[in-house]
């Protein structure tokens, strides 16, 4: 039955079944032990001077900037697409929906190669961009945002589409009978109703963009300040200075968990509930 107040079942009593408890504990161990490992192995004694390294700040600034820009792009492009998939009957909608999810299953490195064949200097669209406007995406911060948007977009589309499907379309019909245009209905009725889905989709997209590695390093390269985001900096540091790699990982972990916790409390109570 529907529970509009959102309460959870409390009727079940008795001991916790081991069939559920054991796998849960194993899952928790798998998820948390690596974090414990990072904390144990962290170079605590040299932490202050390592944190003062401008390269750390530079990579973090770039990561936050690009992930936020990518989330903005996802919202601008993904919300209309989700509406198209959820609320219209365009031909080939199901096939389109499946195609939108491709970046979810594609290994990010393959995504990077695909982006190169599309937007690289000799790519299908990239060649034209270069010749017509002198625009080249690889090795630029914009290229990083494009790669992150590519991998994060399906998360937003899925979340918004789900929210649109579960929202009652009759509100839209009512708005239409009052004379609202389809655009007005979308802005004033559909979107506000789907807001929790939009917000949680944006959070997911941001987290995915922040952790993006494979598509970025393949498509945008790696250079301090322009394209070397935190995950790329971690990878590069692994080759020379393991402690620095751990430190960078910790910083990324603290910042992303902090931001997500903050967002959940302030903006998206629906996600944390």
């Amino acid at each position, binding site marked *: 039955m529907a529970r509009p107040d959102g309460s959870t079942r409390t009727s079940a009593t008795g001991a916790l079944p081991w069939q559920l408890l054991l796998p849960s504990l194993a899952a928790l161990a798998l998820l948390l032990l690596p974090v414990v490992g990072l904390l144990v192995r962290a170079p605590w004694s040299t932490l202050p001077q390592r944190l003062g390294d401008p390269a750390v700040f530079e990579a973090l600034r770039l990561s936050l900037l690009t992930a936020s820009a990518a989330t903005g792009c996802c919202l601008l492009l993904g919300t209309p697409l989700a509406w198209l998939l959820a609320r219209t009957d365009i031909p080939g909608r199901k096939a389109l929906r499946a195609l939108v999810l491709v970046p979810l299953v594609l290994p990010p490195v393959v995504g990077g190669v695909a982006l190169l064949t599309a937007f690289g*200097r000799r790519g299908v669209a990239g060649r034209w961009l270069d010749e017509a406007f002198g625009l080249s995406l690889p090795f630029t911060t914009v290229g990083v945002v494009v790669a992150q948007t590519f991998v994060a977009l399906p998360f937003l589309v899925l979340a918004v589409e789900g929210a649109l499907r579960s929202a009652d379309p009759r509100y839209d019909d009512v708005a239409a009978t009052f004379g609202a245009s389809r655009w007005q209905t979308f802005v004033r009725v559909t979107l506000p109703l789907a807001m929790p889905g939009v917000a949680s989709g944006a959070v997911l997209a941001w987290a995915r963009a922040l952790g993006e590695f494979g598509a970025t390093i393949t498509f945008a390269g790696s250079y301090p300040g322009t394209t070397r985001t935190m995950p790329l900096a971690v990878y590069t540091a692994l080759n*020379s200075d393991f402690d620095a790699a751990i430190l960078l990982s910790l910083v990324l972990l603290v910042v992303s968990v902090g931001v997500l916790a903050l967002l959940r409390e302030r903006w998206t109570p629906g996600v944390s509930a």
Partner: protein
Amino acid sequence: MNAPCAAAPRRLVAAGLGLLLVAATACSASSDAGSDSGSSSSSDSLELTVLAASSLTEAFGELAKTYQSDHSDVQVELTFNSSSTLAEQVVAGAPADVLATADEATMQGVVDEGLTAAAPEVFARNRLTLVTPADNPADVASIDDIERGDVTYAVCVPDAPCGAASRTLLDLVGVRAEPVTEEDNVRDVLTKVTTGEVDAGLVYASDAQAAGSDVTVIDVPESDQALNADVIAALTDAAEPDAAASWLELVLSKEGQQVLGSYGFLPAG
């Protein structure tokens, strides 16, 4: 409205159980395979694991064939990556018999951990060269041209052997233009050039040769003063120390040196 909501979790559970089953069978299959190779390796064929710098891909590939024709009981497993990545993996306990790095400094880290069976030996030297895409879109004629504002170029990260040598070379030549990207290993630099994403890249002569007609090679005479020494060592924890020793023997032999020479490497001496 109600029915699909109730059915969804059940389907999810079924899917989850399916995954668990797959995982369980995969685990048992891999452990079986592990014990199989463990018990049979002494009688049938043993496995020699060689970790080598990515610039050695073709040369070691051919040497592995030569080696296996002489040692039919040994299966040579080659892994190529950035020298520093491989060294890090050895220090972290990756099971391997032989390590070959593209410079001495990287190998030294493994030596310092006491993980090499004997002192590393120089088996080849590698010289940097400038490569451009085959059609040389930016008309690069010499290394000085990458100083021009419209030329983009790629190098290895300074921490990788090829990156350290590139830094030395660029300083020698007096080029101050920044690269557009610092790749983690030399083959990634080469890829950026062969795909035409950059106008030029600094790679080893052996890589340029491996790329064949996909690149145009521009010699940099000054790179004679920025040579990297390729070094090789058997590892303390080698599972197959005898096979490791005979691999080193082959690489250092006249035959091995000829193979390396044919792939663009300079002799060790």
